[in-house]
């Protein structure tokens, strides 16, 4: 029995330790409760947050020299997401070198981010960019703890007095890539390697599918986009395996992906060397050099467009730690924050389409759905590119959460004699009805799928343009996307 008593004693001591320790800590820190209301998509979420009471903070003044820091989730050498953020950082560091000092911390995991933020604040950094969705809640906690520091979080939806959000979205580029894919494919089967099926990627898959069908259907092809999800943002091995499955089992001859490495491009180039031609579109950074024979085009991002705007406004005293609550950049092709292409020449100009494929794209003739003219696919791509790029009134609306819903207005009537209406949204929007689709299971945050079971039908009536919120909450696939599950 003595033995048993000892066991019990050990466990009791352990429990006492936990309880005693907890109470000892509980009575040593003062706290207060803050209730905040955050708009999340259409719904509103009320959150109560307990923060330890902070002493009175001195009023904010714009520092003479601004110190800005970036926190990256991956290594700068990933040649994808973090790499392009760092290119953006280098641009502003050089551009504003008279008054800006920058630094970055790479390979930070979500649970480590708070301590890294503490360290940055202690070292005098007053503008902090956290560049992963994973960091959202940690950045939000820290924004409340440091009311005098300006936080900008990339890709999230939680904002606060001193925490803004920003994102450069690629869906228009995926649509343009889709047009080319529709012209080039012989089998009509296209493969998509997706990191996660969150709204951002779902939007990109749909935009690509819409573009491919617009051209493919006119050329007599039956377009299907096969999607394999790999569940990670950066995993070259899984991306390659998914690409291999798509080519071998689904007979796709075009590959497109959302993953932060060059794996899929390299895979397609290897196939080319073995005598099999599979076209590929590079993602996020210019990956042309990894597959000069197979890369048709791709998506490029230019975070410096957003970073320049933010930091110039911080310097001018426009962005202050008490007015970021509605700062939410949603930058599209019209702003230059994203671009069509797979290569940047040494002089800085962009190769939009690999010259090798231009003749083929010029041969294929299709009708422009807006005008009814017969044009080559190459001309169509360039026409759409220009149409989405020219939207002079759009950019001022894209910087704040309050004005996002106005972005899909096509024009504003002025009543003036010589300028009867001012255009807002681009003439062309890929997500315009009629569109048919189906809801993704276990989601339901858009107005189309909320409260509906998985695979419920989605019908967007002819002429209806999806709004910012529809795009942001997208939880359905168009009907010719075939989701194959996760590996």
């Amino acid at each position, binding site marked *: 029995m003595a033995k048993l008593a000892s066991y019990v004693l050990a466990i009791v001591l352990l429990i006492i330790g936990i309880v005693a320790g907890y109470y*000892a800590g509980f009575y040593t820190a003062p706290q207060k409760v803050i209730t905040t209301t955050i708009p999340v998509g259409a719904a509103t979420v009320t959150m109560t947050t307990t923060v330890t009471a902070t002493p009175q903070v001195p009023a904010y003044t714009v520092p003479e020299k601004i110190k800005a820091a970036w926190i990256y989730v991956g290594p700068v050498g990933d040649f994808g997401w973090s790499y392009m953020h760092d290119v953006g950082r280098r641009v502003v560091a050089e551009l504003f070198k008279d008054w800006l000092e920058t630094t970055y911390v790479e390979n930070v995991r979500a649970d480590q981010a708070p301590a890294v933020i503490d360290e940055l604040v202690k070292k005098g950094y007053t503008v902090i960019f956290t560049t992963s969705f994973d960091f959202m809640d940690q950045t939000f906690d820290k924004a409340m703890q440091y009311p005098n520091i300006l936080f900008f979080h990339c890709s999230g939806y939680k904002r606060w007095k001193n925490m803004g959000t920003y994102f450069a979205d690629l869906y228009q580029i995926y649509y343009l890539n889709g047009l080319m894919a529709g012209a080039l494919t012989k089998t009509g089967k296209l493969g998509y390697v997706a990191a996660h099926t969150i709204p951002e990627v779902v939007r990109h898959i749909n935009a690509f599918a819409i573009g491919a069908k617009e051209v493919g259907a006119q050329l007599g092809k039956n377009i299907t986009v096969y999607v394999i999800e790999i569940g990670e943002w950066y995993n070259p091995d899984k991306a390659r395996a998914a690409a291999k499955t798509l080519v071998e089992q689904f007979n796709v001859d075009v590959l497109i992906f959302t993953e932060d490495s060059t794996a899929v491009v390299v895979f397609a180039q290897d196939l080319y060397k073995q005598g099999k031609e599979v076209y590929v579109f590079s993602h996020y950074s210019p990956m042309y050099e990894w597959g000069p024979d197979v890369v048709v085009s791709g998506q490029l991002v230019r975070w410096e467009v957003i970073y320049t705007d933010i930091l110039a406004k911080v310097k001018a005293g426009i962005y202050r730690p008490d007015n970021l609550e509605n700062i939410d950049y949603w930058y599209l092709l019209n702003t230059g924050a994203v671009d069509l292409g797979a290569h940047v020449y040494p002089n800085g100009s962009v190769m939009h389409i690999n010259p090798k494929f231009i003749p083929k794209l010029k041969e294929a003739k299709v009708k422009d759905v807006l005008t009814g003219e017969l044009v080559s696919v190459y001309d169509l791509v360039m026409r759409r590119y220009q149409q989405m790029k020219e939207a002079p009134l759009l950019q001022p609306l894209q910087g704040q959460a309050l004005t996002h819903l106005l972005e899909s207005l096509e024009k504003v009537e002025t009543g003036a004699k010589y300028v009867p209406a001012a255009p807002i949204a681009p003439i062309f929007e890929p997500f315009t009805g009629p569109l048919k689709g189906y809801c*993704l299971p276990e989601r339901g945050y858009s107005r189309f799928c909320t409260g509906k079971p998985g695979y419920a039908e989605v019908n967007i009536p002819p002429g209806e343009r999806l709004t910012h919120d529809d795009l942001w909450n997208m939880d359905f696939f168009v009907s010719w996307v075939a989701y194959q599950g996760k590996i």
Partner: protein
Amino acid sequence: MPKVAIVKRELSKTVATVAKVLVILLGLLIAIALTSIITGASMELAGITLLQGFLNLNVFVYISTLLPIAVGLSIAFSASAWNLGAEGQLVIGAVGATFIALYTPFGRQEVVAPLMALLFASFLGALWALPAALLKMARGINEALTTLLMNFIAYHMTNYLVKGPWRGRAVYGYPTTDMIPVQARIPTVPGYSFSWYVVVICVVIALLMQLFLYRTKVGIALRALGSSPRFVELAGISSKRLFLIAFLLSGALAGFAGGVKVLVYHGKLVEGPIVGSGYGFTAIMLSWLGGLNPLLLIPASYYTAALYILSFGLQIGSAAVGDALANAIVGSLLAFILLADFLTKYRLVIRWS
């Protein structure tokens, strides 16, 4: 041909300690020199950067996860219970804490919620360690292997939960749960990212386990189990039961650390490998660094934690180096500790024949 032999040496405790400290200081000096050569920053600046890593209170962020796991593992390893599954037990502990906070009525009650969550996390951690212990006792199946494999089962179970039934409503399809209620979260110190409550608990646990291992009959028998199991049997204590208690304690403490990760750092359940992020494996190294002694584990975990802080601190400011180089410097600092340990216990004898 020269002959090289490694010979055990007996040094007095003071000499050994002084020698160890000297070797560690030498390691630090080399790290400072390396940093300053590579970045072109002055030695002084490199030194300050390095020192800041060690003086940063945020070391407690890492101590409060690593220390409880390492204490648990020390108990297990002392009893020759080779539990390599702390990672999985931690992850399952995190699942337990999330369950209490999100899906039970306790989740919205102040004080009760974190307490219940931590206790349930420890319970689940122990439960996750149980099958391996039972398999060993009943069939003699190597527990190192089974615990190691259980890690991956834990990862995948957690992934299933956050991608399936537990996926949050306000997370846009991202593989995480919703945030746990604020009542269940353990507040952190202003200006830092750790919680005093947890730090106090961790130190108390280390002290209690020290008492348990060195002052109670069961604890002493536990330690003897490693070196002479027959002796323990002869003393009339069931070695199987000792094995089990060591295993369960280590599982419970790893589960506790998992609870801490959810309640303090994540505020929600995320994918398995992100919750675990290798702490369960780092703790194995740490428990040997501390010589399987819960008290010595406190400075050992402090040192390891400081190295974590350092690997980020080195990336910031004027003496900034990249992540890869920062890790190389941190790794060499750790290597120097092992070298110090080796040199105080053994010496190299080279004979020319």
